């Protein structure tokens, strides 16, 4: 790994609270994250872990009852948490930082043509003429894999399939040449074969256009394909992060173990799959100790008393679990995810279940 990479955006001790009726909910609890230029960082977590909320602080898109109560997000020397009005965000949101959401229809206007929605963004951000914008828009549509882009320029979103719409959303997001692209579960609503296409599309475009990607998903299976680095979120915190190989082949937090172990790809027919019992913690309550402790069959007594600090596993890999403390008992990761690479290799090699020619 290149040690001298530039940090493009840096979140420090970010805390986000929501006011729901008369109560406060702490959705994000002191999360810090540095993104390096040109990398793909994936945030993995189940619903309610705060992964979407956290990234919304990068674009000032928190719901109106939410506030950033602590911390900073530095981007080009500016603290994004200080920006308030839409005018403050001009030139950043949708320009330098773009977002793709799960449901493409939330980003598309159903009563305007696809073409006009793309050209609008191009005209606004690049100040080019209408005919030039149209030319660029068609180019962009072709680039995201729309065949006969010129013919489909004047069609409406409902005439496009779900996968095609998501391609258009990507085209719109990229037509202002952002430095950071946030992908918030961009494939969850799509079919598996389309999912694979969209993921490889994003990856190819990234190579070509050199933006930084922040990829949010609940599915660790997808992450292996897209990410350079991975952060696992639980209960409003990042609990483990590292390079993608480190997180998959040498995970240290019991929650990461559990997420990996429960993937059906690793299941053996006739045997039970591993699963995480119970429900994520209610963020209305103050969380004492390790948020995952009540669902963790490997929890230590101290997990219920004191929040663990981050322990260093390698220069790039950190995990927030007491199991890494020298005083803690030694514990191997579960059997299913030991020798993960060998197992998967076997599955995808000739004669394996997921081998294709």
């Amino acid at each position, binding site marked *: 790994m290149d040690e001298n990479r530039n940090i493009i955006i840096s979140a420090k001790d970010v805390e986000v609270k929501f006011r729901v009726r008369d109560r406060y909910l702490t959705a994000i609890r002191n999360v810090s994250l540095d993104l390096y230029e040109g990398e793909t960082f994936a945030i993995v977590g189940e619903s309610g872990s705060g992964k979407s909320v956290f990234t919304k602080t990068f674009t000032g898109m928190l719901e109106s009852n939410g506030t950033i109560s602590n911390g900073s997000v530095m981007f080009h020397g500016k603290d994004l948490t200080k920006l308030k009005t839409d005018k403050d965000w001009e030139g950043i949101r949708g320009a330098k930082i773009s977002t793709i959401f799960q449901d493409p229809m939330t980003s598309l206007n159903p009563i305007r043509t696809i073409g006009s929605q793309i050209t609008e963004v191009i005209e606004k951000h690049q100040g080019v003429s209408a005919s030039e914008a149209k030319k660029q828009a068609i180019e962009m549509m072709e680039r995201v894999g729309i065949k006969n882009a010129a013919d489909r320029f004047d069609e409406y979103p409902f005439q496009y399939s779900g996968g095609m719409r998501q391609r258009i959303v990507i085209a719109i997001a990229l037509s202002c040449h952002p430095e950071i692209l946030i992908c918030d579960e961009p494939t969850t609503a799509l079919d598996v074969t389309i999912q694979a296409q969209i993921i490889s599309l994003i990856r190819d475009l990234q190579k070509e256009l050199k933006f930084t990607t922040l990829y949010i998903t609940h599915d660790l299976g997808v992450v292996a394909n897209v990410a350079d680095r991975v952060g696992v979120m639980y209960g409003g915190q990042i609990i483990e992060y590292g390079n993608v190989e480190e997180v998959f082949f040498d995970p240290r937090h019991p929650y990461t173990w559990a997420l990996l172990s429960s993937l059906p790809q690793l299941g053996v027919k006739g045997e039970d799959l591993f699963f995480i019992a119970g429900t994520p913690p209610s963020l209305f309550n103050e969380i004492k100790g390790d948020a995952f402790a009540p669902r963790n069959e490997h929890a*230590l007594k101290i997990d219920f008393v004191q929040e663990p600090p981050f322990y260093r596993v390698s220069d790039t890999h950190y995990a927030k679990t007491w199991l890494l*403390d020298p005083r803690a008992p030694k514990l191997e990761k579960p059997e299913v995810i030991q020798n993960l690479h060998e197992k998967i290799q076997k599955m995808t090699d000739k004669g394996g279940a997921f081998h294709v020619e």
Partner: protein
Amino acid sequence: MEENSVKYDSDLFEFASYDKDESEHIAAPKYSYWKSVWRTFVKDKFTVGVAILLLILILFALIQPSVSGYDPLIAPNINNSEMRFIKPCAEHIFGTDNVGNEVFDVVWAGAKNSIIISFVCTFITMVLGVVIGAVWGFSKKIDKWMLEVYNVVANVPFLLLAMILSYVLGAGMGTLIFVMCVTEWVFVAFFIRTQVMIIRDREYNLASKCLGTSNWTMIKNNILPYLISVIMTYVSRMVPSLISYEVFLSYMGLGLGVTKASLGRMISIYTSYMNGYPHLFWIPVTVLAILSISLYIVGQKLADAADPRTHM
């Protein structure tokens, strides 16, 4: 980290006991629909104040007439010209009217009948409308011919019908209630039909169907509970509008006969004295306005509170 090693004994670094069921418990306090409705309702102090005022008004209107013994057919002071048209003063709070009756007594007797009529009518039309509307919205088969019924009934000129009915049946409380209900239910039913159609095809109804639940049970348990809020909104508009209706019909001479007091009759009689004695007109109108507006406010707030989206 240094601090931790001092603070925590190493015996804390042992495995804790683990109970799978433990994490299935729901920590939040139990949810109860009607309790939540109540809690949401009483949270707004202004509406609670209006509700209390409304309750006092209604109770007073129901009780006062039997205390005063007011009867529109008996006018004890009719021959005493000094007792007529007295302006409101300490002795006669609302003054007296053209036949020397206390306006205070007349207005409460009138309010009593108006309230009773509008409540009874609302009750009848809502029960009819909701039941018919629910079945109508639920069954695709009867929709076609119910729409025809709706088109006919909804297009009957109401005033004409009211005139004919009140001539044929004679003026009176029963006739008035009948007149006011005879076409109104169809609008309620149509409204409910549309609401039912919106939620009829939701997946949880399909699930009930797969469990063999009958249409009636589904209407009762799957559909109507979802409509409580919209029904309340409807009621909160209907009660005051029916009070005004009664006033309007009585004003037109199609309402209650001379034997019964009502706000409508009062207004209709007192209008003639508008020039010299405007208080005669304004007092019943004010009572009508206060009743209607507070009924509307309370009803709207109740409807709001009945919507579970407000229960957080």
